[in-house]
């Protein structure tokens, strides 16, 4: 049996090829952990604009997500925790009106991604009921409690990280860098994974695959973290 399925690509630039202007880009990570920094840098080199970026945070300092705002590539951000120290590139884009913000409770963000991944039309949740974030949304009382209708959040592209990956796209994450990566991998049309190491097929035990390769389109090895 020959090798038919091989999702491993040789470079980051090859991995991000095909991302288009105006795409909805899901970016894994929580704070600076599990953020696909190399893929973001590839996206900056590609120079695609008018992106909608969906990620828990909006980047800090001069690396990772912050680069997308620094280079004026984002017209809309969807995040739960954008206001944090060191987010000056996002703040500049937001305050100039270049980038709009949709603030989403963290659990609602995860579940909207999951709804998209699972082909659901949305869900009702008590989270956000009676708050400013309920504005403009359909509500319903279920079992005596006010619920808010939240819609699925689907990506054109997902940029995710993993510790290990194989040619089938199977991913194994490490510690709290798993965070949003598996659900984002499942919620996009094109899922691109940067991994610390590409390992031979079969060497991630099937019981230890966290994100099944069926959800992953491209895998690129970027090596370990820089010290």
């Amino acid at each position, binding site marked *: 049996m020959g090798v038919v399925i091989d999702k491993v690509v040789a470079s980051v630039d090859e991995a991000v090829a095909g991302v288009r202007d105006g795409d909805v880009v899901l970016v894994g990570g929580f704070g600076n952990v599990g953020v696909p920094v190399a893929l973001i840098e590839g996206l900056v080199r590609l120079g695609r604009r008018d992106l909608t970026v969906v990620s828990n945070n909006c980047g800090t300092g001069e690396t990772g997500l912050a680069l997308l705002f620094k280079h004026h590539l984002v017209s809309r951000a969807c995040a739960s925790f954008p206001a944090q120290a060191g987010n000056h590139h996002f703040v500049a884009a937001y305050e100039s009106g270049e980038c709009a913000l949709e603030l989403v409770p963290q659990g609602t963000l995860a579940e909207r991604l999951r709804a998209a991944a699972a082909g659901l039309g949305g869900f009702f*949740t008590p989270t956000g009921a009676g708050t400013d974030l309920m504005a403009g949304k359909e509500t319903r009382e279920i079992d005596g409690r006010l619920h808010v209708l939240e819609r699925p959040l689907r990506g054109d592209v997902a940029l995710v990280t993993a510790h290990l990956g194989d040619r089938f796209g199977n991913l194994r994450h*490490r510690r709290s860098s798993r965070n949003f990566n598996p659900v984002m991998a499942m919620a996009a049309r094109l899922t691109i994974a940067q991994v610390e190491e590409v390992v031979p097929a079969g060497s991630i035990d099937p019981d230890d695959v966290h994100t099944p390769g069926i959800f992953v389109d491209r895998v690129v090895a970027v090596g370990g973290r820089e010290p």
Partner: protein
Amino acid sequence: MTEGWTTDQMAARLARDIPDGAYVNLGIGMPTLVTAHIPADREVMHHSENGIVGMGPRPPAGEEDPDLVDAGKNPCTLALGASICDHTVSFTIIRGGRLDVAVLGGMQVSARGDLANWRVAGQALGSVGGAMDLAAGAKQVWVLMTHTDKSGRPKVVEECTYPLTAARCVDRVYTNLAVLQVEAGGLAVVELAPGVDAAELESSTGAPLRWSAALAAPQDT
């Protein structure tokens, strides 16, 4: 006039009420101080919304794992019995009512248990994080905050004026002056900090308080 408990004493007072064996989430800010007051020999499981059940304390310098942080993005460790999950599972824990106690900071708590803790009125850029999920989903929501704000205005109020995190979600409030319980009929005083009398608590609180006979009596301290 007394300041009552110090911040550390408030955290210790709250920690005393966390049952052994509880699954808890301590929010970022003041609630993280509670951890230090749960002795290692008490088995309490700490949940962190970025996918950790069984979070341990900050590691010694030089032993940080860049893949392992708490909800405030600070380095942490894993305790015996820990597990890692992704965000959907972590918020299934929160939203599915599996947490026994969520401890949150507060800007305002109303007499009905409404909580405002994520954004001041009129602020352009707010961050909600997991606060709305924790407030709506945990079995018990305890708020740890100073009794009054920096200008001396009550933070326990009849109606919140800051944007809500969740309505009718707070069960208990731990402040420097007192421990309050949100009951159907209003706010009940559970305990006064040493040196704080009923009159002082009343004057620092923006909502009616319900007193038991024992607590309303003059304090001997």
